[in-house]
C-alpha cells in the first residue's frame, strides 16, 4: 500500500470497517437482543402468564397430544419448562432435512393441555437476524461469516492504528470539535471491552468451522463420512421408522433417570423421540445448557419401547472437541445465569456503539473535507450517509416496531408470525427510503437535510420505546407496576429496558438538535462576515 505500515493498516481499518460496518451493526444489535430471546418471547405471548409446574400428568398429556396430532411424524421434540420459559413447547417436523416444515404448539406443563397463544416469531427473530440476516440460510450465514472475519481484521488494524491505546482510553473531549469527540467515543467504546470483541468475533466464525473451514474434515473423513456423526457431531442417529407398531414407554421415569444421570443441577432441556409408536422408537433426553461454560449438549438415549438406556453422550475429556464446546459456550452465553446475560447485553450495546461511532466518524471526516455545501460531493458519500442513517437510527425504529406489531396485529390472523417479520422489514425499508430521500433530494443545505432525517428517526425511536410499556399494559400484558409487584422480572425487564432506550434516544436527539442549531448560528455569522463564501464546516480544524 501507499505509505507506511501503520498507514496501510489504517486504510484497511477504515474500509473493512465501513463496508462491513453496516452489516456488523445489524449483527451486533440482533445478537445483543438475542441474549434475551426467551424473555422477549415471553413478553410477546401475554396469554402465557400463568401456567402450573411440570407434573407426570403434564408429560403424559404431552405424549397424548403428539400421538393425537402427529401419529406418523418421523420424530417429535418438546422442551420442558425452565427458569426462562414456563411452558412445554412441542415441535414436529414433517420430514428430515432443512426444507421440512415445522409445526409447533405450547402446552401447560401441569396438564399437557394446549395453551392458545398468539403465533409469534418472538425473540428468535433477533437470533435469526443475528446469524443469517434473514438472507436465506446459506448466503446469509456466509455473509455473516465474512463480516466476522472483517471484524477481526478491523479489530487488529484498529489496535495497530491506535498505538496510544491506553492514553486514548482516558481521553474524551465531548466539548471539543465534533470530529474529535466522535473519535474519542469510538476509541472508548472500542477499547473498553476489546477482549470481548475479539472473543465474540472469533468464537462466532469458529462455531461454523464445519461450514466455513471444512478442509480438515474433508481430508480426514472423505472416505468415511458417516464416521463424522459418531466421532464428532455425536448425536444419536435413529434410522428409518420400522413398519411394526409398538406402544411408547412412559416418559416421566425416563426424564427422572436422565436428570439423575446427567447431574449438574441445571435440569432437563428437551426430549427428542425418534420413530414414535414404532418398534425402533428411541428417546433422547438432553441436559439444559448452562450446567457449565462449555455448550456440551450431553444427553442420555433410551430404547423407546423398553425404556432401557442404549447410549450416554457425556462430555468428559478436555480435548479439541471440548475446546470447540467452550468456544460455543462463550458465544451463546448460556452459562452463569442472568449476571452473564446482562454482561453480554452491555458488551453488545458497547459494540453496537463502537460500530455506530466508527460509521459516523467516516462521514463526519468526509463532510469536513467536502465542506458543508456538498452538492458536488460524490455519489458514494451520500449513499454512506443514507446507509448510516437507515442502519444506526432505522434499525432501532424497525426493531421497536416489531414489538408494537406483535401487539397490534390480530392474535388470530393467518400466517401471523410471518406477518410480524414482514412488518419489520417493510418498516425498515421505509426508513431506508426516507434516508435516501434526505441524502439525495436537491437541497441548499445537504447537512441540514441529513441532520433532520437523523432527528426525525430518533424522535420516532424515542416515541416507540417510551410508548411500549403503555402499549403492553393496554394490550393484555402484565403492566409494569403489576410485574414488579408480582416479582415477574422477565416481563418488567422488557418494559424497563424500553424506557431506558427511550431516554437514551431522547438524549441523542437533543445532542443532534443542539449541534445543528449551534452550526446554524455559526453559519449565519460566517455568512455575515463574508457573504457568498462557502460556509464553514461544522467542525473546526
Amino acid at each position, binding site marked *: *500500500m501507499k505509505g507506511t*505500515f501503520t498507514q*496501510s*493498516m489504517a*486504510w*484497511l481499518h477504515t474500509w473493512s470497517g465501513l463496508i462491513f460496518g453496516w452489516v456488523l451493526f445489524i449483527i451486533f444489535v440482533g445478537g445483543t437482543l438475542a441474549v434475551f430471546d426467551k424473555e422477549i418471547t415471553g413478553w410477546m405471548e401475554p396469554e402465557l402468564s400463568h401456567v402450573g409446574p411440570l407434573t407426570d400428568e403434564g408429560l403424559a398429556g404431552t405424549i397424548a397430544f403428539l400421538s393425537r396430532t402427529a401419529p406418523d411424524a418421523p420424530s417429535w421434540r418438546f422442551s420442558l419448562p425452565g427458569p426462562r420459559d414456563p411452558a412445554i413447547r412441542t415441535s414436529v417436523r414433517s420430514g428430515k432435512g432443512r426444507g421440512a416444515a415445522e409445526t409447533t404448539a405450547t402446552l401447560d406443563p401441569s396438564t399437557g393441555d394446549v395453551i392458545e397463544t398468539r403465533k409469534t416469531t418472538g425473540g428468535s427473530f433477533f437470533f435469526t437476524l443475528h446469524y443469517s440476516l434473514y438472507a436465506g440460510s446459506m448466503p446469509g450465514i456466509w455473509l455473516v461469516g*465474512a463480516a466476522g*472475519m472483517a471484524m*477481526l*481484521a478491523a479489530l*487488529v*488494524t484498529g489496535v495497530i492504528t491506535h498505538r496510544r491505546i491506553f492514553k486514548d482510553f482516558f481521553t474524551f473531549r465531548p466539548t471539543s470539535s465534533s470530529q474529535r469527540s466522535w473519535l474519542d467515543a469510538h476509541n472508548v467504546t472500542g477499547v473498553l471491552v476489546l477482549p470481548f470483541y475479539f472473543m465474540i468475533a*472469533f468464537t462466532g*466464525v*469458529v462455531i461454523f*468451522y*464445519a461450514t*466455513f*473451514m*471444512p*478442509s*480438515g*474434515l*474433508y*481430508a*480426514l*473423513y472423505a*472416505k468415511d463420512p458417516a*464416521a463424522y456423526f459418531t*466421532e*464428532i457431531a455425536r448425536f444419536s442417529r435413529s434410522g428409518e421408522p420400522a413398519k411394526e407398531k409398538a406402544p411408547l414407554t412412559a416418559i416421566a421415569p425416563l426424564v427422572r433417570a436422565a436428570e439423575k444421570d446427567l447431574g449438574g443441577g441445571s435440569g432437563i432441556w428437551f426430549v427428542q423421540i425418534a420413530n414414535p409408536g414404532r418398534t425402533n422408537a428411541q428417546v433422547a433426553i438432553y441436559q439444559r445448557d448452562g450446567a457449565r461454560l462449555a455448550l456440551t449438549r450431553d444427553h442420555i438415549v433410551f430404547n423407546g419401547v423398553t425404556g432401557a438406556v442404549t447410549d450416554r453422550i457425556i462430555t468428559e475429556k478436555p*480435548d*479439541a*472437541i471440548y*475446546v*470447540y464446546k467452550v*468456544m460455543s459456550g462463550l458465544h451463546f452465553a448460556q452459562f452463569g445465569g442472568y449476571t452473564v446475560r446482562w454482561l453480554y447485553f452491555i458488551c453488545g450495546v458497547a459494540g453496537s456503539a463502537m460500530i455506530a461511532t466508527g460509521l459516523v466518524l467516516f462521514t463526519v471526516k468526509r463532510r469536513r473535507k467536502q465542506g458543508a455545501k456538498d452538492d458536488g460531493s460524490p455519489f458514494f458519500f451520500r449513499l454512506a450517509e443514507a446507509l448510516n442513517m437507515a442502519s444506526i437510527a432505522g434499525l432501532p425504529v424497525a426493531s421497536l416496531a416489531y414489538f408494537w406489531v406483535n401487539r397490534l396485529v390480530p392474535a388470530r390472523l393467518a400466517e401471523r408470525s410471518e406477518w410480524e417479520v414482514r412488518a419489520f422489514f417493510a418498516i425498515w425499508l421505509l426508513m431506508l427510503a426516507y434516508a435516501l430521500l434526505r441524502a439525495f433530494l436537491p437541497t441548499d443545505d445537504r447537512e441540514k437535510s441529513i441532520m433532520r432525517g437523523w432527528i426525525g428517526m430518533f424522535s420516532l425511536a424515542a416515541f416507540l420505546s417510551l410508548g411500549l410499556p403503555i402499549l403492553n399494559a393496554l394490550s393484555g400484558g402484565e403492566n409494569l407496576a403489576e410485574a414488579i409487584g408480582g416479582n415477574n422480572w422477565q416481563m418488567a425487564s422488557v418494559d424497563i429496558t424500553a424506557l431506558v432506550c427511550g431516554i437514551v434516544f431522547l438524549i441523542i436527539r437533543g445532542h443532534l438538535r443542539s449541534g445543528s442549531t449551534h452550526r446554524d448560528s455559526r453559519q449565519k455569522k460566517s455568512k455575515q462576515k463574508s457573504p457568498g463564501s462557502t460556509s464553514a464546516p461544522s467542525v473546526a480544524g
Partner: protein
Amino acid sequence: MKQRSSRIREASAIASRVLAAIIGGYAFAFAFTAALALALPVTRANAAVAAGMFGFIPYLLAILWVFSVRSATRAWAGLFTVTLTSAALAASLYFLKS
C-alpha cells in the same frame, strides 16, 4: 486524462488486493487447514476440529499481510507460494496415510 488513467490504475490495484485478501487468503487457509488436520498427531476427530478452528488465524494473518506488502502482484505471488506449499504438504500427507 493522465490523472484519470492513473486513478483507474490505482483502483484496479486496490481491487486486485481485495480479491487477493478474500479469495487468495481463503485458498491458503483452506489448504493450510487440511495440511494441519493431517499432520496433527492426535485422534482423527480432534485433529479435524482443532485444525478447523485454528484455520481462521492463517486467514486473518493473510488478509493483514496482503495489505501490508508493497504491491498487489507481490501479494498474489506470496499467497500463491504458501497455498501451493500447503496443498502439496496436505496431498503428500494424505497419500502417506492411505
